[in-house]
């Protein structure tokens, strides 16, 4: 059974349908890159997975458990308590870091551990230290977000999400807001996570990263999955004109060989 399975996901904003029936299965330890032009629905789909967006039709299951909505009978949103518990199994990292600005790096990581996982402060501090160390910020534990660079903030955000030991990690264009020289340090942390077997869904425009780290690339176009396959298949053998022209923007690195 797939770790995550999405079936026929439809989402509308008013009269505009932005997701027109997404089907996607993600296996344990896969690193799936969602690529596509802006407006293709990749970020919206990512946000549907942990219920930051509601969707109007379709079903998402994590390890067989229906996420966000009732599994059978009339389609109904689950209670806040249940949705919160489900979100705790899915980590998410945002484009704009979204660290809690009034807390140190360490406290940012600890909050979910103590309040959601019910750990003692000592346990949570231990684990926060472990993960901040792992993302290379052992010496920045007591710093507040405003005292950290964008790359450092994003690494704290990754530590905060991963420390919860989620079943699945979602990355929403996590390097798009960074200065070019800070991108590599964040990608390195993500690559390290991928190697450790973490299941990841990554929305990214970093095509070299996608090529080297993703186990599968999914090209989205107009709210649908247009092509899906290994990086080699998708990046070097685009099956549609849309994908060819999308890849053409990356200065001829990709496209038909």
């Amino acid at each position, binding site marked *: 059974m797939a770790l995550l399975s999405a079936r026929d996901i439809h989402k509308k904003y008013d009269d505009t349908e932005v997701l027109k029936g997404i089907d996607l299965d993600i296996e344990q330890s896969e690193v799936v890159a969602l690529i596509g032009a802006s407006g293709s629905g990749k970020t919206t789909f990512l946000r549907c997975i942990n219920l*930051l967006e509601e969707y109007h039709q379709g079903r998402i299951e994590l390890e067989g458990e229906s996420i966000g909505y009732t599994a059978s009978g009339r389609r109904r949103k689950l209670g806040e308590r249940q949705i*919160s518990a489900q979100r*705790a199994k899915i*980590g998410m990292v945002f484009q704009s870091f979204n660290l809690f*600005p*009034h807390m140190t790096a360490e406290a940012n990581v600890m909050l979910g551990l103590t*309040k959601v996982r019910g750990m003692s402060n000592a346990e949570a501090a231990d684990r926060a230290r472990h993960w901040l160390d792992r993302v290379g910020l052992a010496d920045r534990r007591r710093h507040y977000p405003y005292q950290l660079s964008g790359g450092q903030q994003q690494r704290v955000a990754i530590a905060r999400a991963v420390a919860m030991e989620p079943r699945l990690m979602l990355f929403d264009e996590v390097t798009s807001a960074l200065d070019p020289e800070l991108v590599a340090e964040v990608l390195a942390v993500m690559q390290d996570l991928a190697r450790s077997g973490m299941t990841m869904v990554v929305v990214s425009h970093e095509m070299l990263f996608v090529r080297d780290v993703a186990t599968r690339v999914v090209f989205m176009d107009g709210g649908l999955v247009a092509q899906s396959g290994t990086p080699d298949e998708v990046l070097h053998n685009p099956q549609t004109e849309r994908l060819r022209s999308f890849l053409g923007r990356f200065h001829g690195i990709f496209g038909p060989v």
Partner: protein
Amino acid sequence: MIAYNFNWAVIWRNWDAFLGALALGLGLAVVSLVIGTIIGLFLAYARLSPSPWISRPAWAYVEFIRNTPLLLLIFFVYFGLPEIGIYNLDKIQSFILTLSGYAAAYMCEVFRAGLASMPRAYGEAAKAIGLRPWQRQRHVVLPVMFRITLPAVSNNLISLFKDTSLAAAIAVPELTFTARQINANTYRVIECWLTASALYLVTAYAIAIALRQVEKRYAVVR
């Protein structure tokens, strides 16, 4: 040529009375701010409620208070409550009730603006780690909102402190009332009012400086 002979000895003789009265006024302002903050927070959430049955009454209360003179409210509560059978409030309690209710309306507007200007990003990050709705408010939204609104809260405290002078109208022995009494007993008009003014000025300014330090300490939201 001004023909006025200053006699500051009168002031020094009554110095303790001045200071005691000042302390009372400050106490009234702080207590009212605390109560007003708590009520104001509930009012702010009520005003942001999607249900008109909750948001409309809160809106009406805030507009009523903000568009009515404080002195009138003080009289209304002090003379009005006994008329409807509530006798057990002394004048200090009556004044605290009024000033708290008055502060609540202003704090409501401060908090409402603070909550409305909160970036959604923080709430979403709190959702993403699995915090429940109340936990998100308690650990993320409110702490950030308080820090954002701290300068406005400081201004309100200074305003409330100066507004305590209106308690003189119902004979609460705060600074303005006390200055008037000493003035009546000694006929030292200029000295009494100069002293009272100076005490208000110095205290309000000291509060401003102290709170600026607090703001700096907590200004981690940039």
